[in-house]
């Protein structure tokens, strides 16, 4: 597997702020790689480091095994889809898409042709004559995509591109992006704070927190086997059992994660009190208190909903509890 992008001990400090703190990444060619985390976690900075808009304070970055140190963005065969799309307001759609080709010196006829093809690829055929101000958010996003792809980059970077779209459009775009990536075979590096998005589109996900990567893996691994409490909480809101609770159920002193849908209420297990219930469509969310911590259970429809205040017990299958690394707290 060729390495498309690799970070070795990369840090980016802004004065005393460590935006990126000794990060190692290895993205394989042809992968759809997601960088997930809350705002300020360093994921966008990492993306900008790949693009060349930031320079690392320490560590090395290579793109397809070539060192990227000192190489400006315009010399990298890497293209970015910006969060605000950054379409040039003074150019029409066709000239926007053809911009990179124009800079590269391609003839007008050729580059207009290539731009038209790119627009067809993103399902906007014939939109070339319009101005960016005349387009909707979703259309602008596609133009930005076309503008990046037309240059046939080796790596495509996407900076929270779906953030400004409404839910339906976002879901549709997620499918389209995934299909596009598979079709073109280009390495996609995608930054998002929406864990649902990352899990549904990516081949692998890197979870960021406070400038560091806390876990890298396939979506199922991240979801079902979080290694640290932060990941458990951030990705899918797992329940995190502190060591004293885990000991009672597994006999081991460590943090453990249990997904809400795996929690069963009944006569067996640890004693707990129902604090609140809310109906959320296909299931009921039950908030419980046990042993000083809060726990969430998702009951499927059909199951009896316990009244608030009732004393019950919580239990789960042995497969459904996942032990994590011991946390410092």
């Amino acid at each position, binding site marked *: 597997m060729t390495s498309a992008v690799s970070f070795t001990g990369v840090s980016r400090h802004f004065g005393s702020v460590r935006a990126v703190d000794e990060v190692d990444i290895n993205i394989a060619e042809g992968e759809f790689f997601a960088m997930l985390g809350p705002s300020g976690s360093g994921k966008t900075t990492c993306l900008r480091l790949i693009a060349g808009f930031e*320079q690392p304070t320490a560590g090395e970055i290579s*793109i*397809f095994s*070539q060192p*990227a140190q*000192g*190489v*400006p*963005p*315009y*010399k*990298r*065969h*890497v293209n970015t889809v910006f969060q605000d799309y950054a379409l040039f307001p003074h150019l029409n759609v066709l000239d926007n898409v053809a911009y990179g080709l124009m800079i*590269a010196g391609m003839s007008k006829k050729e580059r207009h042709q290539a731009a038209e093809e790119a627009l067809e690829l993103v399902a906007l055929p014939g939109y070339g004559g319009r101005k960016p101000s005349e387009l909707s958010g979703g259309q602008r996003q596609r133009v930005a995509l076309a503008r990046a792809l037309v240059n046939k980059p*080796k*790596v495509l970077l996407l900076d929270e591109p779906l953030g400004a779209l409404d839910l339906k459009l976002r879901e549709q775009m997620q499918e389209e992006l995934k299909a596009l990536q598979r079709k073109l075979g280009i390495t996609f590096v995608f930054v998002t704070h929406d864990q649902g998005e990352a899990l549904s589109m990516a081949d692998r996900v890197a979870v960021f927190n406070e400038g560091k990567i806390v876990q890298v893996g396939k979506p199922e691994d991240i979801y079902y086997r979080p290694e640290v409490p932060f990941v458990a909480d951030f990705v899918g809101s797992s329940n995190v059992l502190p060591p004293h609770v885990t000991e009672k159920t597994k006999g081991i002193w460590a943090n453990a994660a249990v997904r809400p849908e795996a929690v069963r209420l009944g006569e067996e297990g640890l004693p707990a009190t129902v604090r609140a219930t809310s109906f959320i469509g296909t299931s009921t969310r039950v908030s419980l208190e046990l042993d000083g911590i809060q726990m969430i259970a998702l009951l499927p429809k059909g199951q009896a909903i316990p009244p608030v205040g009732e004393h019950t017990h919580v239990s789960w299958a042995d497969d459904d509890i996942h032990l994590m690394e011991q946390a410092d707290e």
Partner: protein
Amino acid sequence: MSDGVLDTDRNGVLTRISDTLWRNPRLTILLLIAPPALWLGVVYLGSLFALLAQSFFSIDEFSGLIIYEFTLKTYSELFTPANFDIIVRTFLMASAVTIAAAIVSFPIAYYAARYARGKWKAIFYLGVMLPLWSSYLVKVYSWKLILAKEGILNWLFETLHLSWLLEAYLSLPIIGGNSLSVSWTGTFLVFLYVWLPFMILPIQAALERVPPSMMEASGDLGATPGQSFRHVLLPLALPGVIAGSIFTFSLTLGDYIIPQIVGSSRRFIGQAVYAYQGTAGNIPLAAAFAVVPIVIMGIYLWIAKRKGAFDAL
């Protein structure tokens, strides 16, 4: 074009310069800021220092030559009764003009900010902009025509049989004179006219920042329109008024043309500066006089800054 992911053989001169600039953002800023900073620093600041320097020199009374030695003698000359009069006179005129300008501008600014819509907004905008930018000298000149003995204002008074009123006014001490065009009232009117746009714009800008809902909220809480005006609108417009007053005050302090064309023979600071640096060749005294408005404005600006007037600029 290289096959690799990183383009290592784009090496034109401009590209290489671009690389260097990209690697050194500080260098880029330096290159951008150096020409204007040098120009302003050398030409403008340099001149200001020259002015300051000159004010500490003095002129030899007999030879008329400048003695390049540090002394405070020139500054002390500012305090002779004649010279001090000039300073006080100018200061009073500047204050009068500023207050009047604030009063006259307010309705215009208020209307333009609050009520003007569509084409009226453009009309008001241009209506203030055009006089602002049109020739200063032409404006002054037009008032010379208006105030002349045979001019339109006198004609108006005669037609309305109110000449006696004008004569009575002109016979008043200090503000009267032989005719309007050689009286301080004339000077005052011209100053007011010429600086009006400078007062309107900042007030308008400040008022535009007041959301209409604020006045409504005030009414909602039981205030009469008058009370809303006094307690809500006026304080919010104040930074704009202060910003405008900086202009009117500063411009009046330094002007020498208007008093010369429409006014009595008693001098203002600007005229003193002009006179002393001209044939008299007494640049040190001219410089000392010129420092006076700088000091006054410095104090004024400091007070204004504390009142937050600079947001309205």
